[in-house]
């Protein structure tokens, strides 16, 4: 099997195809501290792309509660259990990737979900870990925890769906790294459904072929961020392009957050797919859980994130989330303002680092009334 370099695990690994990085790589950063699971992204994606026949239970974007929420049911604990305990303690991963752990006769270690695993897309919603015994009272930080994990296709650098398909029906676009599933070529073998550890390819029982998130490529081609990003009312997402660490550009907001500030981490990097959706870990969740999910460097990421209020550049990058529907290729912070630019260098976003404070007197002289805080 050819060898490819995966920077997320700090080493070369086996992959069914020769390395071929795209000219640009689609990527997204999601701040899990800000997600409230309103599912606006889910609905935006659903109404845009999957309202058709056979897509009734198909959510290219979903938001699940962790640790007890899953879509499909148990997706991550099932593959983690198959994967077994792996050594992911350092920047160089010592365990096996899912390609390296593939059993004889398979291209990747995976499993095919049951049909009913998709039947309850929001199972486990808001369930927290830990009991609240009689007489106990809430202390800070809370003894119980849960958080929301929004998920789309990770448009991996080394997609397992692509690697599993015996017909090469799945391809990674050389121009932007978006991973697409050819609706004319697929024959519905479901090798990709089995192979993708994130379970982000879906089988359509009406067309009898598989489908997946298209990274809103018609928008991305025109310089716009994906629908799940622009519809996010919590402004938790920033979609753009990422480069490899050796070519990281500090003025690219995604490169800055991922490679420079290192506050955003990939989902289950130990799988070896070099997933391109990056998460800012929730600060209140126990580290062992977060380290399993986001790899090494989580404590440092959280410490840096907590310092963001004192770091104008980092704060500026974070404030660009949800500030424009355009894809931000470059940003700068000057005079207390974060400014984002598109690919042509035109300004597309301008956000004050500190919102100006307006103080209204309690008595409104013009209307001769007292103002009230109730509306």
């Amino acid at each position, binding site marked *: 099997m*050819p060898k490819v370099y995966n920077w997320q695990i700090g080493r070369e690994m086996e992959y069914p195809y020769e390395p071929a990085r795209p000219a640009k790589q689609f990527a997204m950063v999601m701040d899990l501290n800000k997600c409230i699971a309103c599912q606006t992204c889910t609905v935006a994606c659903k109404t845009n792309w999957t309202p058709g026949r056979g897509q009734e239970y198909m959510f290219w974007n979903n938001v699940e509660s962790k640790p007890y929420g899953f879509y499909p049911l148990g997706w991550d604990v099932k593959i983690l259990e198959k994967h077994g305990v792996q050594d992911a303690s350092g920047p160089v991963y010592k365990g096996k990737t899912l390609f390296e752990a593939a059993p004889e006769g398979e291209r990747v270690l995976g499993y095919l979900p049951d049909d009913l695993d998709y039947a309850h897309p929001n199972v486990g919603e808001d369930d927290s870990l830990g009991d609240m015994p009689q007489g106990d009272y809430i202390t800070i930080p809370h003894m119980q925890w849960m958080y929301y994990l929004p998920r789309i296709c990770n448009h991996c650098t080394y997609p397992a769906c692509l690697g599993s398909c015996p017909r090469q029906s799945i391809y990674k676009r050389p121009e932007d790294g978006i991973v697409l599933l050819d609706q004319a070529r697929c024959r519905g073998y479901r*090798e990709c459904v089995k192979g993708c550890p994130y379970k982000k390819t879906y089988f359509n029982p009406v067309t009898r072929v598989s489908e997946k998130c298209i990274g809103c490529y018609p928008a991305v081609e025109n310089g716009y961020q994906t629908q799940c990003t622009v519809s996010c009312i919590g402004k938790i997402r920033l979609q753009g392009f990422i480069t490899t660490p050796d070519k990281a550009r500090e003025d690219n907001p995604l490169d800055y957050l991922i490679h420079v500030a290192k506050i955003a981490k990939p989902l289950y990097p130990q799988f070896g797919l070099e997933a391109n959706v990056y998460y800012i870990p929730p600060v209140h969740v126990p580290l062992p859980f977060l380290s399993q999910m986001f790899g090494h460097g989580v404590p440092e990421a959280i410490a840096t994130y907590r310092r963001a209020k004192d770091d104008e550049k980092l704060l500026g990058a974070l404030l660009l989330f949800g500030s424009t529907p355009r894809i931000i290729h470059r940003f700068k912070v000057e005079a207390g303002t974060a400014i984002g630019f598109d690919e042509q260098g035109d300004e597309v976003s301008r956000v004050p680092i500190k919102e100006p404070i307006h103080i209204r007197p309690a008595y409104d002289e013009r209307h001769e009334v007292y103002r009230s805080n109730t509306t």
Partner: protein
Amino acid sequence: MQIKRLQVLAILAGAFAALFAAPLGAQDLVLSAIPLSGSAGPLVDPDAAYWRDAPAIKVEMLPQNITNPQNPDPAVKELNVRAAHNGQWLAFLIEWADPTKSDRIVVDQFGDQVAVEMPSAYKPGDMPNPMMGAPGERMHIMQWRAAFQHDIETSGEPKISDLYPYIHVDVYPDEVLRATDARAYTGAVGVDNPISRPKRSAVLDQMAEGFGTLTVEPEQQSDGRGIWADGRWRVVITHPMAPGDPNDPSLGPGDQTLAAFAVWEGGAREVGARKAWSNWVQLKVETGHQ
């Protein structure tokens, strides 16, 4: 690169299998397509009386173990095959034991399938790779699918309300948009994917030049029908003998060619490369009329 290497490996392995590793005598197995008189048109009836006159051969089925993914222990070990022709149509009656009839397809359910492969252009003495051919060695592959037959015999293409009787859906785009606007939401149906589009036949005419190259032919002529009873499938696959298509073999009485078979047990989740295949058998199109 890896794929090319795999193809080369597959060709070498195929040649090796054909020469040495094949079940002894597989090349000598002769399937006689008996001539039928008094019949015209496609031969699609597995219950037709003439099948009693057609000699049966037992074809040993082997695991596809050249390319990944694979199933090292496929469920079907043997096919019982007969052949007949009426001068216009050639037909195979293929029978095998299958305890489960699988024609409902959802994410974790797969369909029963069987396929006949013949070289698109055969010259006596040729010994092409039986595993879907090789570059320059084009194969014609006729694949019958239980799920396609289910569609044809019931209400057409699968409907979500048939697959999940208690489902409730408020609205679909094609109920509120013009057809041209709703097409974007039809997925593979909208791009005329042969797996998804409306079907007239349960058999797909396909061609291949090696693993991963299987392509549905533009011209669809094959037909077929299966009957599942008492834990056994009996499936007929039929094809015009003068198809007028360079991708398909053209055969007449007295001709000889090769045929190989593949079978998928949907109940055992066999699909795609996870299949059982056979080596070549000699196919003789007999002359004369009964």
